[in-house]
């Protein structure tokens, strides 16, 4: 099937780049060039090999809270001043998803312009690719996902990395919230568990390339099956509708993968020749073939999954066998398919093949859609909650004076409903440029995103009147609509001020 890819943040950019490389290497053209990458820091853009430069969109570089080296000839003169005042050592949104979301909101016009480069009528689905734990990946990713869902009729999926155990609690917190945000919005979410795939002996950052390659292999086997040229007509071809129907149940999905060498030994060739000549009709050889294929499917089922999970909790399954069609036993194919039904307990198991006449191996790729028993997610949530409580406690202690002001600000904000009025409000932590930023960027963007964003920042960063435990949920309940946007900026500004 055809997919458009939208990388967000460093992880997203690198993964998309890797997917494009795999596209070239395997000759499976599944994006038709419908790709984009968004980042708040130009860093990862420098690392790309295949992703065209004009498809790499830098956003937030004019935002005061975003740390970005500003290109000499970029933008207005006031920008420089703004970013210069609040720059710290870490690039981009420095891991802050609230800031990421805010930047994306502010730059929606820019994002929308970029989206015009991608033709959604040419593809079957869109995919947002991001590091779940990234301030950009999660924050910008959320806004982008929401935007894509509102403008596209095609399904929008999310592919991304979950932070490893040795990454910061903040990343875990962000990732847990990303899951919480992406799943209800997206048509399906495919997380990759960095922890499961990393080897403890090396720093994670040095293993990204390897992990990304692993992801690319699986993604292409699944989504780009049958897109190679020249396309051979397959008897049990997977239609895009098959993949889409499997993913249509939503939730989190996981992928298993295994391959075997095709028997190219003289013996194997002879046996096949005999069969071809009708000299051996039902050789024990074909029997072995069926068993081999079934074994292959079993290894895919038992392989390390992109997201380790209990496969019995899956909702729908899809299996694709890629390889020389003359080597894939039909009985093996059928029993392999049935094995999946037996092992997972679901009756929705679609199976298909991708004929690759010259391939030297047969691979089985299994998609487990909507898996609900995923220990890693529970772990992330536990860490995230502990971290959030810690943050709440800290903030409550640190500042009591501003909290009253903060509370007042919220109350005042709540009285004004129209988003356009925001820029007129004197927020104590705002610089003039920032207010203009907000005003500029606001051309009719949805306000609801910011409500929660603000609640969150209220709970974690802003010294707020009721910033005691559990207040976040409470505040979100009364959802102070429009004006929260300004408040979020306040919070972000505060937090980055505190860094200094």
């Amino acid at each position, binding site marked *: *099937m055809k997919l458009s890819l939208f990388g967000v943040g460093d992880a997203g950019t690198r993964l998309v780049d890797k997917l494009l490389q795999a596209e070239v290497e395997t000759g499976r053209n599944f994006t038709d060039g419908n790709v984009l990458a968004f980042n708040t820091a130009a860093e990862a853009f420098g690392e790309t090999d295949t992703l065209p430069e004009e498809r790499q969109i830098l956003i937030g570089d004019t935002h005061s809270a975003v740390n970005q080296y500003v290109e000499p000839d970029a933008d207005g003169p006031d920008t420089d001043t703004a970013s210069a005042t609040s720059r710290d050592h870490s690039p981009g949104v420095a891991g802050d998803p609230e800031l990421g979301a805010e930047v994306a909101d502010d730059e929606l016009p820019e994002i929308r312009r970029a989206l015009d480069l991608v033709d959604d009528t040419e593809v079957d689905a869109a995919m947002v690719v991001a590091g779940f734990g990234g301030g950009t990946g999660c924050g910008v990713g959320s806004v982008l996902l929401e935007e894509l869902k509102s403008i596209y009729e095609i399904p929008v999926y999310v592919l991304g990395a979950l932070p490893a155990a040795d990454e910061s609690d903040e990343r875990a917190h962000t990732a847990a919230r990303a899951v*919480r945000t992406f799943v209800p919005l997206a048509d399906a979410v495919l997380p990759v568990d960095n922890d499961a795939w990393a080897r403890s002996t090396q720093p994670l950052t040095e293993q990204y390339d390897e992990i990304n390659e692993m992801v690319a292999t699986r993604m292409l086997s699944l989504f780009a099956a049958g897109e190679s040229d020249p396309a051979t007509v397959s008897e049990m071809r997977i239609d895009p*509708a098959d993949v889409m129907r499997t993913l249509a149940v939503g939730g989190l999905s996981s992928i298993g993968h295994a391959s075997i060498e095709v028997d190219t030994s003289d013996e194997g060739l002879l046996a096949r020749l005999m069969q071809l000549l009708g000299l051996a009709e039902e050789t024990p050889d074909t029997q072995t073939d069926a068993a081999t294929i079934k074994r292959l499917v079993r290894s895919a089922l038992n392989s390390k999954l992109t997201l380790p999970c209990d496969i019995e909790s899956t909702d729908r399954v899809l299996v694709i066998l890629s390889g020389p069609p003359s080597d894939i036993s039909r009985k093996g194919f*059928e029993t392999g398919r049935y094995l999946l*039904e037996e092992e997972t307990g679901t*009756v*929705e198991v679609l199976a298909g093949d991708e004929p690759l006449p010259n391939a030297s191996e047969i691979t089985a790729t299994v998609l487990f859609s909507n898996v609900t028993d995923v220990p890693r997610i529970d772990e992330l*949530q536990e860490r995230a909650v502990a971290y959030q409580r810690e943050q709440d406690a800290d903030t409550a202690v640190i500042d009591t004076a501003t909290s009253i002001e903060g509370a007042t600000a919220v109350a005042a904000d709540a009285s004004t409903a129209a988003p356009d009025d925001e820029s007129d409000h004197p927020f104590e932590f705002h610089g003039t440029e920032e207010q203009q930023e907000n005003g500029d960027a606001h051309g009719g963007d949805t306000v609801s995103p910011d409500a929660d964003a603000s609640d969150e920042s209220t709970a974690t960063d802003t010294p707020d009147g009721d910033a005691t435990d559990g207040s976040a949920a409470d505040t979100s309940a009364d959802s102070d609509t429009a004006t929260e946007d300004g408040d979020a900026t306040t919070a972000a500004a505060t937090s980055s001020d505190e860094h200094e």
Partner: protein
Amino acid sequence: MKLATIGVGNAGSKVIDRMVEFEQATGRDLCRHTLVINTARTDLAKPEHVPEDRRLLIGETHQKAKGHGVGGDAAIGAEVAQTEIDDIRRIFDDVEIHEVDAILVAAGLGGGTGSGAAPVVIEELQKMYDEPVYGLGMLPGKYEGGRPALNAARSLQSFVNKVDNFIAFDNDAWRSRGQTIEEGYEDMNRELATRIVTLLAAGEVDESEVGENAMDSSDIMRTMEVGGVSSIGYASTGVDTPDDGLLSRFSEEEVSNMESTDAAKIKGLVRRAVNSRLTVPCDVASAERALIIFAGPPSEISRKGVESARDWLEQETETVDVLAGDDPRTDSDTLAAVVLLSNVTDTPRIKEIQDQAVDAQDTIQQQEAVREEEIESLITDDDNDLDPIV
């Protein structure tokens, strides 16, 4: 008989294509009109004997199909056909229906397009024409799993209710071991095409040298009019072609030598047809009506043999409604006996599919019932402390 044939979905289209191939190869002229309907553009390109303008893509504008099939979702298959029923009707405009005796709609019942769209098409055809509409359905194999079984069980019900007769083909019974994916369904599609064309092409020649023993289209239709599910048996034997010059004289001699054993040969052929693999395995005794057609050179068909074969089948089927007749094919190098067992009620495979479907439906319903809840509980922490970003 003269037919208008319609293949719906991938399997249905392929089988129709094979039928045309077989009739062309054997000089028959059964399929006067062919049409294939599919939701998948790539599948529509497969038939080799169906003219381009007789291939109809439906669901191109449907959000979930878009020319890519319906992913085994029969509800969408049905929906799409319903939405585009006008296009489907329109393609029948140039079908001179008085030129055909009946309409045959073929589909694989395990997928989404065939099982969902075909019953919609049939319903429309029944409204449009007085001619009988027959169904030809490929039953999914056990190992295709629960979803295809559920599609098939549901679709079978619609088919049988709507058609004048439903001919079933059991993929499991016809599966052979050594096949690779590449070979796919080719062999069994040819076997099926041979049976269905040999059966229905009888009586296509009106102006006849054919004589009183010839089977008439109306005989076939009478056998089928009881409705229900039918199964076809088939057996053939080689005969020497008359136009082989010297050799043929020798053969004629040989044939005449064997004349005494001809009756036994004919009866043996029918026994073989019934006792070998039927299109859908069934208890022969459960058939309501039956019919035997002998297709081949008339000189090969012994009247005595025909009579004893008919008597034998009457006993087997425990019915007196057995018709027997010829489809004279003077130039044919084979003599075939094809047996139609009409309205067989004891078909174990259909029972199995229904049981598998009931289980599948339970599983699907259970999954649906908890789906949203399980997703929700996975993505939220225990106390719902974590907020979404947007």
